[in-house]
């Protein structure tokens, strides 16, 4: 991906994978996300950009209800995945998170073997009938995570012994092993060097074939390189959302323009 130009692709825009309407998030008294409406498409990469503390990560964590683990956090509004309200009383967040995988800012492999890291999700969800099938899932996931060739000879080695970039790709492999439909990535490259970043970005582009990918990033270049749609958050508001090319080349909102050109942020 040496091409630095924004990627423009035709995407199927019939039906959004994720639809948020009037989403509000409060941390205690603090109103962190204000009335966000957004449609996230399937088989596309959507980037959330914005200055620190603008709420992009918070909104990302609403999509798989990771905010439920924070006591003071309250989410209002309507978020639907495949037209099902994920904040419905009947929804079990555990089931939702199997469907909406997540990759975190800091690579966080379990202090277990590489194999066990990837096999953990399939194991707890009962995706494999026997050992052979599990082996197959692990290999397929590690291949999708573009790390198979590097680790195939040492699957029993601890996952925490890998380099930072390898660890992050292992975490991505771990996330795709549960066969999610949506993959959320919270600044997946912020702890990586440029070479590892490039590998992960290539990976994200490949993952787009099968998943709806949502990525939070601090790097506008990265958003421009990997995403088809871009959302710009500022002070808890979704300022502008559209095709990545349009956001970067022809922003409608003056705040977006200031941020893109480096005047605020």
């Amino acid at each position, binding site marked *: 991906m040496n091409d630095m130009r924004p990627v423009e692709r035709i995407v199927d825009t019939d039906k959004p994978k994720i639809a948020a309407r009037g989403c509000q998030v409060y941390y205690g008294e603090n109103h962190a996300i204000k009335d966000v409406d957004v449609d996230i498409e399937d088989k596309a990469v959507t980037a959330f950009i914005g200055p620190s503390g603008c709420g992009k990560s918070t909104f990302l964590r609403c999509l798989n209800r*990771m905010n439920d683990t924070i006591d003071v956090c309250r989410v209002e509004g309507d978020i639907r995945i495949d037209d099902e309200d994920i904040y419905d009383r009947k929804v079990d967040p555990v089931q*939702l*998170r199997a469907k909406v995988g997540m990759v*975190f800012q800091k690579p966080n492999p*379990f*202090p277990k073997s590489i194999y066990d890291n990837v096999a*953990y*999700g399939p194991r707890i969800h009962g995706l494999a009938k026997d050992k052979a099938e599990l082996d197959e899932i692990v290999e397929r996931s590690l291949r999708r995570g573009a790390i198979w060739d590097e680790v195939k000879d040492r699957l029993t080695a601890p996952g925490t012994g890998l380099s930072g970039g390898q660890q992050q790709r292992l*975490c991505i492999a771990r996330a795709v092993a549960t066969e999610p439909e949506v993959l959320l990535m919270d600044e997946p490259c912020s702890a990586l060097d440029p070479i590892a970043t490039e590998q992960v970005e290539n990976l994200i582009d490949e993952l787009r074939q099968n998943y709806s990918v949502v990525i939070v990033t601090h790097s506008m270049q990265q958003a421009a390189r990997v995403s088809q749609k871009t959302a710009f958050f500022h002070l808890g508001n979704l300022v502008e959302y559209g095709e990545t090319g349009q956001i970067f080349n022809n922003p409608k909102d003056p705040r977006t323009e200031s941020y893109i050109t480096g005047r605020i942020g």
Partner: protein
Amino acid sequence: MSDATAPATGPAGVRVKKMSLLEQDDRTKRRNAAEKRFQFYGLTAITVGVLALAMLLISILSNGLSAFSQSFVTFEVTLTQEQIADAEASVVKTSKYSAIIKDNFQTALAAQGLADQVSVDDAMGLISKEAAAQLRNVATARMGDDEDVSRSFTFLTNGRIDGYYKGRVTMETAARDSNISPEQLQLADQLREAGLIEKRFNWGFMTMPDASGQRPEAAGLGVAILGSLYMMLVVLCLALPIGVAASIYLEEFAPKNWLTDIIEVNISNLAAVPSIVFGILGLAIFINFAGLPQSAPIVGGLVLTLMTLPTIIIATRASLKSVPPSIRSAALGLGASKMQSVFHHVLPLAAPGILTGTIIGLAQALGETAPLLLIGMVAFVREYPAGPPEGLFDPASALPVQVYNWTQRSDPAFFERASGAIIILLIFLLFMNALAIFLRRRFERRW
């Protein structure tokens, strides 16, 4: 240019003093001196601590090591079946056995040519009063065998004679002592030369039950060690699961509100409650209310469980807290339930800390005396408790209580026994702490 000779001034008109790096300014000197002083205080504190520990160990070892060796008198005893039947038929059975020992001892003395030194009764004073009971144990086991018992027996010597070999009793103190005379000590010397009396390692100190104040030589820690082991068993089986379950719930599941805050503060407070208060609580609840037997290891174990729980809960919560939150979010992000994330990932990582906390809690419980006094474990117990689980309800003693008990007896021989018991207690504690370190090393994940 009148100010040409004036000292150079800085940008804001402040006088800048030019300093060489080769000499220290006052500030640096003061800072270095403060650092030196602090290091000196630290070293002094450590030295005082090490000296205190060394003194403690030296005093205990010098007083207590002699408890592990004891002098024994060995001679041939012939016991016919008629004698056994006669003795068992009488009212005071041990006095008959005592007479048998006396006869045989006299024969043994005569064989050495020492029979005319002192009267037979005085010579009997050399042998522990425990000897008759020891002989009776053998006799009852062989009763009805048709065969007469004739073999050499090894009896404990009297505590005073033992004290004479250990330097506790001298000819001068014996002259003033109604229990022993210098003539008896001389006979003991001769018997030792003849090889009838010898000093050797005393396993009985660790296996025999406690003995009355008249026979310190027979007093052992058998019942106390068993009682302490039973109590540790109860504490481990109750405090570990309860403590770990409580900590996991409080740390991982409980909502953070005023109620959990109160619980948290009270757990910390419980750790500071004087242990004797737990003894009163145990007396009121387990003995008076629940009707459990007194002096029983089960009650002691329950009381010590209450006492150990706060320690285990605090240690467990601390080690749960030290597990990085990224591990929890990784598991949750994969669709693991809260419980799966705790039991698959958090708990294994916290295990070394939990184990260390538990063992330290157990070690604390092992050395605890005060609550056991209140639930009757200070009683004089000669009978070994049965095997678990029934034995948990039998009366037993405990190591620290035995130490307390022995220090209160008048015979100086018990002072040596108490120090010996402290050595045993310290060995147990040392072993437990070593185990804690070993487990920590073994289970710590260093990757």
